[in-house]
């Protein structure tokens, strides 16, 4: 049952429909095993944004405070999109490579072990 309600057929209002974000979609970005950032971060981004722009403009805003950030080799990072392995295409928009509303993009940098090598 989708809800236990007094009135049969009750439906809840979807608070986070993509239409509510003024042309943007929410995208979450997480750097695996780098706990300096307590959680993945959320950004409202245009669906037409090419992946290269996300790397150039959004990634530094999200993770640039980390001392290892400048050492990231974006050509070799391992990506997960909504839990599945993912090979982003730099010139293709988010929407055209299935980065949807409220998609989670995670990346791993196996050669960068975090501050003190402790996953921080």
């Amino acid at each position, binding site marked *: 049952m989708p809800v236990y309600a007094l009135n049969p057929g009750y439906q809840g*209002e979807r608070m986070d429909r993509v239409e509510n974000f003024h042309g943007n979609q929410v995208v979450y970005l997480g750097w695996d095993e780098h706990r300096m950032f307590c959680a993945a971060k*959320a950004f409202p981004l245009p669906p037409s944004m090419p992946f290269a722009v996300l790397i150039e403009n959004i990634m530094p805003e999200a993770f640039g405070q980390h001392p290892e950030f400048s050492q990231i080799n974006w050509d070799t990072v391992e990506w997960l999109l909504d839990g599945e392995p993912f090979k982003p295409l730099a010139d293709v928009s988010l929407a055209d490579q299935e980065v949807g509303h*409220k998609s989670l993009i995670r990346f791993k940098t196996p050669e960068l072990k975090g501050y003190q090598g402790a996953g*921080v």
Partner: protein
Amino acid sequence: MAAKKLNIKDKYRLLTRDLDWDFSYEDRKQAFPYEEFEGIKITDWNKWEDPFRLTMDSYWKYQAEKEKKLYAILDAFSQNNGHLNVVDPRYVNAVKIFLTGVSPLEYQAYQGFAHVGRQFGGVGARVACQMQSLDELRHVQTQIHAMSHYNKFFDGFQEFSHMHDRVWYLSVPRSFFCDARSAGPFEFMIAIGFSFEYVLTNLLFVPFMSGAAYNGDMATVTFGFSAQSDEARHMTLGLEVIKFLLEQHEDNVPIVQKWIDKWFWRGTRLLTIVAMMMDYMLPNKVMSWKEAWEVYFEEAGGALFKDLARYGIRMPKYAETIEKEKEHISHQAWWTFYTHGHAAGFHTWIPSDEELDWLSAQYPDTFDKYYRPLWDMAKEMEAKGERFYTSGLPQLCQTCQIPMLFTEMDNPNQNSMRDTVYQGERYHFCSDGCCDIFNDEPEKFVQAWLPVHQIFQGNCGGPDVGDILKDYYKMNIGHDNMDIKGSPDEARWNKWKGIA
């Protein structure tokens, strides 16, 4: 002839059970419309054993006496500048969390118990819930009074009620109660009366009240003592409710078990903030969160669930995950607030070296390996004049609304993330527990008012975070938030104490 004085038994009967009446020309189902939709079967409300044999007249008399004493002590506290007796101004930030995060829950509990105190078909349950409702209303009032003294001397107290409704981290306790209050009356009782008041309440009140006692906060201690007898009644009611439901009909057992699973999980997520308070915010520590969890849940709760096994009730789902998480959550939560200290309505700080060593000793398996490096990094950054405040806004769990800060217990370096797609839209969770709760009632949780998404939708002013904090949250920027080092709270304290 003088009226004969009623004996206690007659008085009790006349002022509780005899307040009920039969429905001769109205449909009883219409009078109690909430009683059946949850699937709970009540065969005989007369089997309800009143957990506290209290009538309204004695309730008022007893409470009035208690509160007279409470207010006398609060007056004395205030006239003697009691705030100067707290051990350290850092302590007061725990009181700020209590007033903004917990006291408004007392008000929500008052509303919730007033509602179920109308909706139950059995008069015994109605009277008990009405009394608890009054208790909760008294508690919010006495807490506000007890803590109002601090508002004259410290920042961050002035907009507690407004902040509770709006501030990002306060959506966690707020939505917890909104979930319970928008459920049916029986789920509300298992959520708040049983899971919270009976199973978990010691983990909320003991740490805060003992914390107050250990740290020189006479106002909060006094409130705690005053509320103690009420809390004992609330626990008795919680236990009566669960036994009553389980004895009424065997079909109730799986429903009750599902609610226990849900509300145990939601409750432990909510208590993350208490864990953090105990381990990081009390200058004089009472005990570690881990130890508190072992004493109050693993031992006391374990015995309770053994007792309930004869009804077919088992330990809450994911209890084994929580057992592992007790080594981690306080550290993860304080790091989250430390790094979001610019957006919090209280002060944060790096633990002192003695405190870091205390944490190592209390958490020998996890602290040095996973959490001390965070503080080494924070110290290094602070020494360079770059006190770390994280950029951007965190991803939140759709169910508990906590930033997705928890980690996998088989790899504590990696955040735990779950998701599900419901009717074409993706939803994210911090854990299997929160994901299960959503999947059971997606139509309820698609309505979550997630602060980060609301900011992006433009519903919280802005667009700058500073404007949102100032205008939408009513935080006094530079006073209420940021590190305690260099704060006006710290400067005033040093002046009072003659510290250069």
